[in-house]
């Protein structure tokens, strides 16, 4: 197995663009990634693209816009972890020695999808969905347990949103670039008690792309290749085994796998980009990722450590909450942000002297399985 580097990153604007196609958004991200490392489109040997809604041949449709065609292309889906799955796919191809250069793309056009502005409807076989289960409803029930078990308050949930929106103000790509107050978050429209609108990620259109290659090829393009030191992807176990809905069993397992693969500890991580689709969730993932002890996630948040300027920035990009969440793009986009910080190119969002970053994704509501049916963690280092 060879070491794999990331040499190019790019993303489109994130926002509501119903007049733009997924191919157009994807092409914007791909062009940015190509320009980022000044590679020739002809050098790309393999491509993986991720998308949830709602067509086929996503990779082909995007890449023909930029002169990339007639090579191996794979289209993948894994709910919110689709982008991470695409990234891992290209990583595997290069690590296993099948190809030397590849591109991973994630794209979502949510405003033109069947779920635009709506909650994701249940499959015919999804009993719980028909009985009233929704994604915000699930996280609302988790929030109630957090409040019951750990003396967490709705103000703490709102603080996650305030923090990530503050970060979003520093990100020119962000869908929302507005400072929020705790009162504004708490007073926004109630979706499922106690989850309010401003505690939920928005509907977002957008794309992100990364160019990966072997270390040998990387040296031709950059003096600062960013190494992929851990790549993991795992699916969840049966729900009846998830006794505590505040703990993601697959999330905890995958964190351990990633640290082991990278040969590092949580304390070695300088910044994190993670799945904050719902504000209360971020507090739990601090614990699942071992960034603090179980039950102490809210203390970590309250300490200010996870803000830009703190000792362990979490979601300096603005996260899903403020930058936005084009479902299949986020798994690639999180990696793009990590790479920028490790190169010292994150501008006003920069984590000083960042050496190691962690990109986390969790997603998928499958009846009978733990919520968050798919998890992925990538660790990158300079």
């Amino acid at each position, binding site marked *: 197995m060879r070491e794999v580097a990331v040499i190019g990153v790019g993303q489109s604007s994130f926002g509501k663009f119903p007049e733009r196609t997924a191919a157009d958004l994807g092409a914007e991200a791909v062009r940015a990634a190509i320009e980022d490392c000044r590679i020739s489109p002809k050098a790309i040997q393999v491509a993986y693209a991720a998308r949830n809604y709602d067509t086929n041949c996503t990779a082909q449709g995007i890449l023909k816009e930029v002169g990339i065609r007639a090579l191996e292309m794979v289209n993948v889906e894994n709910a919110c972890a689709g982008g991470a799955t695409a990234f891992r796919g290209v990583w595997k191809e290069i690590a296993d020695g099948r190809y030397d250069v590849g591109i991973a793309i994630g794209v979502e056009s949510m405003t033109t999808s069947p779920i635009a502005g709506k909650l994701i409807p249940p499959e015919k076989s999804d009993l719980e969905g028909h*009985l009233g289960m929704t994604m915000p409803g699930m996280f609302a029930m988790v929030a109630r347990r957090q409040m019951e078990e750990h003396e967490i308050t709705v103000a703490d949930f709102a603080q996650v949103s305030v923090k990530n929106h503050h970060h979003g103000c520093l990100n020119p790509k962000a869908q929302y670039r507005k400072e929020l107050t705790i009162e504004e978050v708490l007073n926004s429209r109630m979706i499922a*008690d106690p989850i309010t609108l401003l505690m939920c990620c928005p509907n977002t259109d957008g794309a992100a792309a990364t160019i990966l290659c072997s270390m040998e090829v990387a040296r031709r393009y950059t003096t600062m290749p960013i190494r992929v030191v851990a790549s993991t992807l795992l699916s969840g176990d049966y729900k009846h085994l998830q006794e505590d809905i505040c703990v993601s069993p697959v999330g905890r397992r995958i964190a351990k796998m990633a640290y082991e693969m990278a040969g590092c500890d949580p304390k070695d991580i300088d910044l994190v980009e993670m799945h904050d689709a719902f504000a209360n969730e971020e507090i739990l993932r601090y614990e699942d990722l071992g960034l603090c002890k179980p039950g102490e996630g809210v203390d970590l948040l309250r300490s200010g450590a996870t803000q830009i300027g703190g000792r362990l920035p979490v979601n300096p990009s603005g996260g899903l909450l403020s930058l936005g969440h084009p479902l299949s793009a986020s798994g690639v986009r999180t990696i793009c942000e990590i790479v920028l910080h490790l190169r010292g190119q994150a501008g006003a969002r920069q984590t000083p002297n960042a050496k190691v970053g962690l990109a986390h994704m969790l997603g998928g509501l499958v009846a009978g399985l733990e919520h968050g049916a798919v998890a992925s963690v990538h660790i990158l280092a300079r």
Partner: protein
Amino acid sequence: MVDTFPVREGLFDEAGGGRLFGNKCKSCGRIYFPQAPFCFDCMGKIMEEVVLSRRGKLYSYTIGRMASTHFQPPYAVGLIDLPEGVRVFAPLIMTKEEMYTIGMEMELVIEELWRENHNQIIGYKFKPV
């Protein structure tokens, strides 16, 4: 003339105020609701039907304020832990005060869930005791 259909076959009936049907693995004793085709824990193939307790404790809940597929807001849903070690997701009977507390004792009720093409779809809900 309105026809009545259960939301899904084999989950419940209305006898004695309502009964939920789970099944139990004859090898390891694990109980499932809805019924499992075989035991997901020990892979045992022999399962026997069991009637679950009508009462359990409210593990968590929420009140939906945005319409879901079948329910207009506000509607309550929750997770109820039954003594058999089974956690059931179900709509909750809305009380006027919308007051629920974690750990509250809840009881099974069978009633209409929604209407579809002039048919009445019925299912299980829980209400505070």
